[in-house]
């Protein structure tokens, strides 16, 4: 019997606050695992603490192992989420970028979409929100 190998999804989480990274990590694992509690939850998660690091990670990954999904915070030191999104798009990277912000003001959403983000979700990230995102971009 042939066993189909499950493709590993590569996710980049761009978030400066540690608490938000800890919660997002656990929520993503739960969203990928579902109710199975399988140890092999099918994803590799990289993290960047600001937009500048995110751009470097995306550039480094682009040829070898591009990301399947980028979760982008807005307010960060060094480089914010809007600018990081613009620069990633300027590199020709088409990876889905989902903006994550606690405000969710229309102007904020518009700015992100204008910069090249594909979608927007509010903080905090939950298993359900991430599940919906993964489904939307056909990653789970």
């Amino acid at each position, binding site marked *: 019997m042939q066993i189909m190998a499950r493709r590993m999804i590569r996710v980049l989480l761009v978030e400066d*606050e*540690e*608490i*938000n990274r*800890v*919660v997002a990590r*656990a*929520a993503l694992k*739960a969203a990928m695992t579902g109710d199975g*509690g399988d140890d092999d939850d099918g994803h590799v998660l990289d993290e960047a603490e600001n937009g500048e690091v995110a751009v470097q990670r995306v550039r480094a990954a682009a040829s070898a192992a591009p990301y399947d999904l980028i979760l982008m915070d807005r*307010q960060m030191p060094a480089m914010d989420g809007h600018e990081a999104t613009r620069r990633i798009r300027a590199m020709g990277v088409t990876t889905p970028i989902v903006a994550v912000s*606690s*405000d969710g003001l229309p102007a904020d959403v518009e700015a992100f979409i204008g910069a090249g983000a594909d979608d927007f979700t509010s*903080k*905090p990230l*939950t*298993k359900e929100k991430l599940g919906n995102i993964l489904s939307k971009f056909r990653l789970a």
Partner: protein
Amino acid sequence: MEYSNLRRQTIFMKKNLFDQGYLDEQFNQLEELQDESSPNFVEEVAALFFKDSSRLLTNIEQAIDKYPQDFYRLDSLMHQLKGSGSSIGALRMKNECSVFKANCNDRNLEGCRRSLQKMKREHATLKQKLESYFQLLRQVGPSEYAVSSRK
């Protein structure tokens, strides 16, 4: 039985935290993420929150006393605190963050000061209540925590 009593107390304590508006649904979401591989997840997230929030409150207090006031910086610091509070479901604190940010927007320094004092009180109360809750949960034991968390 002592054990049943402890379980009832944790359920009652948690219900109170929700009924009195200290916590919102996000706290339940965190408990859902707790499992055998991370049995102290919620308490760890809470510890992170209180470490972050204490630092931010100190920074805000220092910034608010500077002259001329930098309302942009105050708003930015409070935005961080709001995000952090949202992660743990700290509803009252989150709401007070919004009040503070509105005062920043209006450049209302006295309003900001009042809001900050209220925020510090809410912070201290939530810390004390959650410490009591986690202490009780530890007495109940890890195997029952998952049951308690679903109530």
